[in-house]
């Protein structure tokens, strides 16, 4: 399962299309995503930063504060320039810029991390 937390529905759908071989769930805000996480732990999260309500950084903090969710890999998808920021302690495994990213980059992250979580959960 891949979570896509993005408040622009069209952008969220574009990301979901790039992950078409995986089960995805779209959330338009961080609160909804956090509320669902216990029932359905994602193998990967694509996270926008500028969200309505709590922003992506608040979500990352929340995620990092629980032992189980701290392990979920997160890929930030934002138009903010975050390339020089080290967010690895929040589980951030990648950053994509909305203005320049390609669907194949999204697919590559899905393949790498969502597949990995499938394998680790089957053991």
């Amino acid at each position, binding site marked *: 399962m891949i979570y896509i937390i993005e408040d622009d529905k069209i952008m969220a759908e*574009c990301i979901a299309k790039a992950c078409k071989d995986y089960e995805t769930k779209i959330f338009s805000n961080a609160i909804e995503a956090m509320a669902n996480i216990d029932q359905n732990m994602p193998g990967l999260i694509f996270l926008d930063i*500028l*969200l309505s309500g709590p922003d992506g950084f608040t979500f990352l903090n929340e995620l990092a504060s629980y032992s189980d969710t701290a392990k979920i890999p997160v890929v930030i998808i934002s138009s903010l320039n975050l390339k020089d920021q080290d967010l690895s302690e929040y589980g951030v495994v990648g950053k994509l810029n909305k203005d320049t990213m390609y669907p194949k980059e999204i697919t590559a992250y899905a393949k790498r991390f969502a597949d990995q979580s499938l394998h680790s959960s089957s053991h």
Partner: protein
Amino acid sequence: MESEVSSILIAAHELKAPMSLIRQLALSLDLENQDANSHVRSQIIDVSERAIKQVNDLTKIAHLEDGLFKMEPVSVRGVCDDVVAELKHLFRFNNRELNIRYTNQSRLVIANSDLLHSVVYNFCLNAMHYSDQETLSELTVQDHNGRVRVGVRDFGPALPMDVWREMKRGWIEKPVSIAMRPGSSGLGLYIASTFSRYMNAEVGAVRHRDGTSFFVELPISKQASLFG
């Protein structure tokens, strides 16, 4: 000069968002089958049209002083009906609803129909962006202290105090970044405010605990009272 540059930057930031979307949609065409492609194509058209509209509005601001926009009796209901018809599909796509409610006496107002259309359009679009999913935004047209008030109520994050103060003053001087309402620089409100001022209309906002109402109050046309 510094404030002008910051306004340009804020406006540029807001206009960049639809361009990124169009790029992603175009890239996603490769991932789709024929049927889905036509859906993507219509999304590309929708997003481009909205962006073009916003750029057009900015261009109009530059020409306001040239007196190109004639003030005349305008059917306020006609303009609101057009905006709702234009945006209804977009609201539905985003799991939101836009309704219209009239209690005014079908009066004509003194306005420029093109500018009034932009004001109402920007208020509605603003409501769509900042209302929660599956909520209703309502466009109301009512008589108010000898004027006609066109208001849009949304249910979402409350409007920040600084923007509310500017709206209360009746005039937004420049686009301001609205951190509580991301994805927006407040450009739409700035456009609505500038056009309203040109039309001698008053804009304002009411903060609710569960959202915001934006309104514009327009002078009633005397021609209307002849018919009324």
